[in-house]
């Protein structure tokens, strides 16, 4: 299969190398199927995902990419936290720096929204119910300077950071989320508090949120330093053309 010329050896083909070339057919068949899969895989994967999600939702956690979130961590496992000691700090260009416990967060105006979560790697989870405090409400509580240019978000996993401009931060679809699907956010989704930036790719929705710094200019976050777009609008960044989220 690799080289057709045999010069140094007197023996030609081995005697048991007779019969139909089934091996070659399998290899070529797989290459053909693979090519079809690459071309039509997007449609197929949506069909497979929704079938598995309906027929056997329990399998979603085990099978590749079936109707659910994929969990990406950049550190060793999930960062640990203590519900009682957890604080979300808001510092920088603010008139009253905050250190919010989970109870403090529940006392701020609560907002819910049901919107999709779109990952830059191609998967999307439709209609996720989120709730928490609008980022703009947190910024109001802290007396953030509206003319400050940017926000920097810090995760207590020790590595993950994110950024938004002030204008983006004040949108009504950017949430400091404390629940998903009506339940407190689970560990793998960034417990106890994560950001949810609805109109942008998922990497902007930083998990395990513990700090918000109001500053003058945008400091690119963890993924942005690794080549992803800073302004990560779904469908018009990162070279992607996904449908906008709904």
């Amino acid at each position, binding site marked *: 299969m690799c080289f057709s010329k045999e010069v140094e050896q007197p023996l030609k083909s081995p005697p048991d190398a007779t019969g139909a070339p089934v091996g070659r057919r399998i290899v070529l068949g797989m290459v053909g199927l*693979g090519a079809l899969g690459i071309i039509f*895989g997007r449609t197929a994967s949506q069909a497979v995902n929704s079938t598995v999600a309906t027929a056997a939702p329990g399998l979603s956690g085990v099978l590749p990419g079936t109707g659910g979130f994929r*969990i990406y961590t*950049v550190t*060793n*496992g999930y960062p640990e936290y203590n519900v009682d000691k957890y604080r979300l700090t808001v510092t920088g260009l603010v008139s009253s720096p905050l250190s919010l416990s989970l109870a403090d967060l529940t006392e701020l105006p609560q907002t819910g929204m049901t919107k999709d979560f779109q990952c830059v790697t191609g998967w999307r989870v439709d209609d996720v119910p989120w709730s928490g405090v609008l980022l703009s409400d947190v910024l109001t509580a802290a007396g953030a300077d509206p003319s400050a240019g940017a926000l920097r978000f810090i995760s207590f996993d020790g590595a993950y950071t994110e950024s938004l401009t002030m204008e983006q931060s004040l949108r009504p679809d950017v949430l400091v989320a404390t629940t998903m699907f009506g339940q407190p956010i689970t560990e*793998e989704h960034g417990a106890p508090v994560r950001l949810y930036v609805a109109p942008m790719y998922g990497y902007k929705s930083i998990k395990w949120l513990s700090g918000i710094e109001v500053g003058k200019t945008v400091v690119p976050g963890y993924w942005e330093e690794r080549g992803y777009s800073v302004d990560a609008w779904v469908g018009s960044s990162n070279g992607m053309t996904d449908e906008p989220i709904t």
Partner: protein
Amino acid sequence: MSQSPEPGTLLRFTSAERWTHRTLGILMGVLLITAAVLYLPGASAVIGNRPLMRNAHVISGFLLPIPIIVACFFWAFRQDLRRLNRFSPNDWKWLRSRRNRGGNTPVGKFNAGQKLNSAFVLGSIIVLLVTGLVMYFNRFFPDDLRTGSTFVHDWLALLVAIVTAGHIWMAYGDATARKGMRTGSVPVEWAEQEHGQWANEVRS
């Protein structure tokens, strides 16, 4: 052949072939383990370290074809490729009859199961490499193809994991076959039992 085995044994794999198998096995092991960590939410939670896992996976993936290409420079490997490619009537008979898999149907150096496995693995490596390249150099591809590649890569990897587990299971059950891959030679009796046609060929 260049290596002369001990009396009472037959040379089954040259050292080039054994090293090819070893290298492929190690790379495949790294790929499957890192894939599991990247993929399965449970494993991600315990091990995490995504950048390290990702780099190990990408590097092993790029290295994977190299042992095969190098092996193609060895005559024994090319001969075995020819054997693996072809299905004789006995192979079909062997495959159809569960009982005959004990050895009543004399088959060549490789039985039909080994032939199917090797073809599947080669096809998988090609498809996984191509889809992996699309995912790695994703900036050069439209997102339809990227999503399609992710889909193919994910599901084929799952099949490869299952087939590899089967391959290891079969090897686990046959110490002599494992010795053949480890040392290169197998006892004549084993060859007569498992690969009768090949035993005759080597002795004549």
